[in-house]
């Protein structure tokens, strides 16, 4: 039976209230705490289409080194988003596809130029969630310097240091 009476408000003790807020703050999806912004679904879909047009994956040839990226973001958090690895040196994406915790890319002559140094941006575009996440780091890294495994830690909170260098992810070589 429907009641027209307003629901009874039950006071919550201050300590419990604070704990509840903290729990809610920490219980959000991992990705929501990262460097993400909202964008309309159709705008994200247009952007994905443009990225798919722009991507030029390296042509694997015998003897070319392979760079294996290992990301720390759980695959479940990425959902059905489109993952992008964008080379600032080449001014185009080198990978546009499903997110996977391990992505292997062949380092062709173009990528290996200049010692393989590059600045990479990692993007996750989630049309259904109307969300675009971007991780970028200012100091470059010799990503394409030869066959290697690289662990990429996508940070929860980007930092800007005293010299104005932005750090949105960390890279370390895995033996």
């Amino acid at each position, binding site marked *: 039976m429907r009641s027209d009476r307003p629901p009874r408000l039950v006071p919550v003790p201050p300590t419990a209230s604070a704990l509840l807020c903290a729990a809610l703050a920490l219980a959000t999806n991992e990705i929501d705490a990262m460097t993400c912004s909202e964008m309309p679904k159709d705008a994200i879909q247009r952007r994905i289409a443009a990225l798919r047009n722009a991507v030029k994956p390296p042509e694997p040839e015998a003897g070319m080194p392979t760079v294996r990226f290992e990301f720390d973001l759980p695959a479940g958090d990425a959902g059905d988003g489109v993952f992008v690895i964008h080379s600032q*040196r080449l001014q185009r994406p080198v990978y546009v596809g499903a997110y996977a915790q391990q992505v292997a890319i062949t380092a062709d002559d173009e990528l290996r130029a200049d010692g393989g140094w590059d600045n990479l941006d990692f993007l996750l575009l989630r049309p259904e969630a109307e969300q675009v996440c971007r991780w970028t780091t200012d100091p470059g890294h010799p990503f394409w310097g030869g066959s290697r495994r690289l662990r990429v830690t996508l940070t929860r909170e980007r930092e800007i240091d005293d010299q104005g260098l932005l750090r949105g992810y960390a890279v370390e070589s895995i033996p």
Partner: protein
Amino acid sequence: MLEFPLDPDAVAAADEVILARTGGRYLTMEPSDAELRREWVRLYEEALAAQSGDTPQDDPDDDRDPTDIEEDCPCGDCPRIRKKNIIFIGSEMHYDSFWWKMMFMAPGIAAATGSGPLRPADETTIAYVPEGYTYLERLPLDGVANSLGHSIVRLLSSADIATVMNDLPESEEDGCPVQVKLQDVVFFSHGLPSQITLNLDGDSGAVTLDRDNLSAIRADAFVPEGKIHSYACRTGNASWWESFSSDDGAHPEDSLAQRMADHFDIKVRAFLTRTLYRDVLRDPADSAALASTLKAQRDGHESEVISLSDEHEALPHPDLAERGNAWLGTGPRGEGTNGFALWRRAAAREMPVGADTPSGLSNRMRTFSPSAPESGDEE
């Protein structure tokens, strides 16, 4: 020999023939039009002679290009040159931060008021990338442009950079030809090695000047004493390495700065290192006081301009730096600076300087001269 002022009927007669030949396109001062310009002069003189019933005299200069008129022009120095400065201001979509949002606007506006490296000119254009700037953040730009008579151009693509720099109209003043030429061009923007990235991380597409699209800009755009000043990171650096043992390792001779010096035959001033805009808007020693003042005053005033000191104010910017956790005290929310952009009422305190990275490189502004980079010519 052409005599000024030109006869309008004879001009019309010559134009009619030439325009029919070019499909309606007016002649330019480009070398590719030299033959047609000579033809235009012949037609003009024929039309003039027909009006007066004279026969055109044989003139030893008959086949000369009418742009070679310095000796004959009755107006003194001809064509008259109108000097134009351009200030390029990039978007700031990289940091997403209260402290850095206006880092390019501040020195750009200071330069527009005469505080930067630009010399006085007959006209000034401010070309900026609008992405990510709110109405309140654009307001100082509009104000300085209106008060000083500068024009404002919005940049939406890489091609727009060339369009702005090629906008050098020819006209006539008191019967004398007038040519607009660039004097000083300055860039305040993000940069990558040999790329001036005016819309780095922007969603609306790249607005970039690099070694590939430089050739779209007229090589004769500048006056001989023209200069380009780039306060973008690493314009004079052709390498992506982060550590060097000497400046030579950055291959400045292959850099965008050197290519611009060669292409325009002018001097270009640029950095091999990244550039540091940290001190442009504030003394870092004041940062804590600015943040705490904003945090204390913002409640109930999130959509208003908040005065932070005699010098500074916080401009409301919805969605800017909405990161971190106010309750846990992390990120901009914890700092209390989310949703606002720092502004200094008098624009920049100083021009940007060279940063310490990549390591091993001189961080002073370097002069690149045509054909070879100079060494030891720093500020």
